[in-house]
């Protein structure tokens, strides 16, 4: 009931859960060997920004549209192509349908 066989692989969520639980226990145990120097309510809680005044949390949070700027910027050419494909014009939607129809006609042997 728990296990899943793919013919070449095996997956058991209960076994996986047990392993994750043991891993967390080990991590918790390792954490116990560290030094506890953190003190609540002291300046340790404030963020360290060298040389600059601290911004408000609203200003510091990166907005969703900027979050993967690096990725989208490095793939600018691809994204320009994708954006130009998504025109929002229903005529273009039909055009893509016709193009796929034509490709399949050729491959299947109609044309």
């Amino acid at each position, binding site marked *: *009931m*728990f*296990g*899943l066989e*793919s*013919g*070449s*692989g095996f*997956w058991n*969520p*209960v076994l*996986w*859960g047990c392993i994750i639980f043991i891993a967390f226990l080990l991590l918790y145990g390792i954490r116990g060997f560290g030094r506890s120097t953190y003190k609540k309510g002291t300046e340790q809680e404030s963020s360290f920004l060298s040389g600059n005044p601290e911004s*408000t*949390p*609203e200003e510091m*949070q*990166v*907005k*969703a*549209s900027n*979050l*993967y700027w690096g*990725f*989208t910027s490095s*793939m600018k050419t*691809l*994204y320009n192509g*994708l954006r130009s*494909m*998504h025109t*929002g014009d*229903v005529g*273009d*939607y*039909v055009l*893509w*349908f016709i*193009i*796929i*129809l034509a490709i*399949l*006609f050729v*491959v*299947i*042997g*109609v044309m």
Partner: protein
Amino acid sequence: MTPLEFLIEQSPALIVAVPLLGAFLTSLIGRVNEKARNIFALFIVCLTGVLIAILASDVLTSGPRLYVFGAQNLQVPMVRIIFEVDSMSIFMAIITIILALVALVYSWSFLKEYDGLDKFYTLALLLITSTLGMELTGDMFNFFVFLEISCITSCALIAFWITEGEALEAAFKYLVISSIGALFILFSIGLLYAQYNALNIATLASVLQFSFVDKIILVLLVVVLAMKAGVVPMHMWLPDSYGRAPPSVILVIMGATLASFYGILRVIFTLYGEVLTTTMRFNLPMHVLVGWLLIALAVVTIIVGVLMALIQSDFMRLIAYVAVAEIGYMLLAVGTGFAAWGTAYATTALHGGVLHILNDALDIGLLFLVAGAVYYVTKKRLLDDLGGLARTMKYTTVFLLIGLLAVAGMPPLNGFASKFLIYESVYQLNPILAIVAILCSILMLAIFVKVFYAAFLGPQRNITASTGLKEAPRSMLIAMGVFAAAAIFIGLFPNYVLDTLVKPAVSALLNHADYIGMVIGGV
């Protein structure tokens, strides 16, 4: 005959008749009392669900069931309407009714402020009727009729927020695309009838020659149904529609979209299964060629869906693009199953693909409900306008986390179980395909990390904090909870669902001779 046996015998017709009757009665009851109308609509869907459960238990234990509308002793079987319900049809009907049930529960709170709910419930029940009809029918023309009903009702439901110009535009685009698709489907059915004097799928499958005209029909049916399922590059109507419709409407339309995907399976496995496995093209068996065509479309669908989702700032539209990518995963599995027909991993791929239909409905459905809850509370769609929602919407946040982890295929949730089967089998066909699929899944996780970070973590944006945010209402939480619980259950007990529902469904697809023999030998 016992009452239960009578009910089982009549259930294929009742499953379509009950919501159809309910659709018109709902409107009448709504004139008397709005609450009674809501309860009645829910009762109708529950009753249909019970009928589906009864039929499912019979089909899964005793095999496919036929229901003949019209004369029993007619000598020419092909002119009557025959419903043929096998394990695949009933699997799809179960998905449709789960989506419908959750959608109606969610609507109770989500739509209570809006006008025109009589029309909403009537149209939603009609859409459920048509979706179930598409899944249960064994007749090509009947399939077209139900497809047409689903197109018209979907279009009207997409325009629910009619005062927003974009909703109206999305509905118009959907209407154009659907009308063109329906026209080509009707043309294909006309060609089939002209050639073989038959409309029944099983009868047609038994006499199909794979002539020049049959090839045209195959391409037309597959491309139109792929467009209706949201396969790239014919997917563009989907983000427009899903991005502008209320989440409860999206759930019901998702059922119809998945029914179109089911249509592709029926066409290539049942209608053309025999001829595609015995003919050649470019010195390749036709099933290999068709399989690789589907794989090519699937890979493009996954990549474009994920890349476009990454740059969306509208929450609903973002999920819509992820839904497109998820269709790609299903198509990848089906393509692999068809290209590698007869091998053990082809069957595994189909197991993964069919299980992923269910998982897609649950996970994407859950994410749309979460997006709807966020919209309900904040009245904002753009992620840039949201922030810090986890502080006030604790349950919704947990549901989002479950949904995002499930859709990205993270263990131990349901998405992992189906994607595991897909990756493993696709890898055996071509490792590069599996690598692309896994990388896109990772990208999918990154997309939802963006959603979680931007909308749920960080400071509450001024624009939302001033409105005094609360958690979503109880009926919406219950609806989300049902999907989340199902995602966890399937993730923990994948084999139970696989053995009970998925393997019989795949077996019904692969053994098309049984489907054909049921009608040819049974009527």
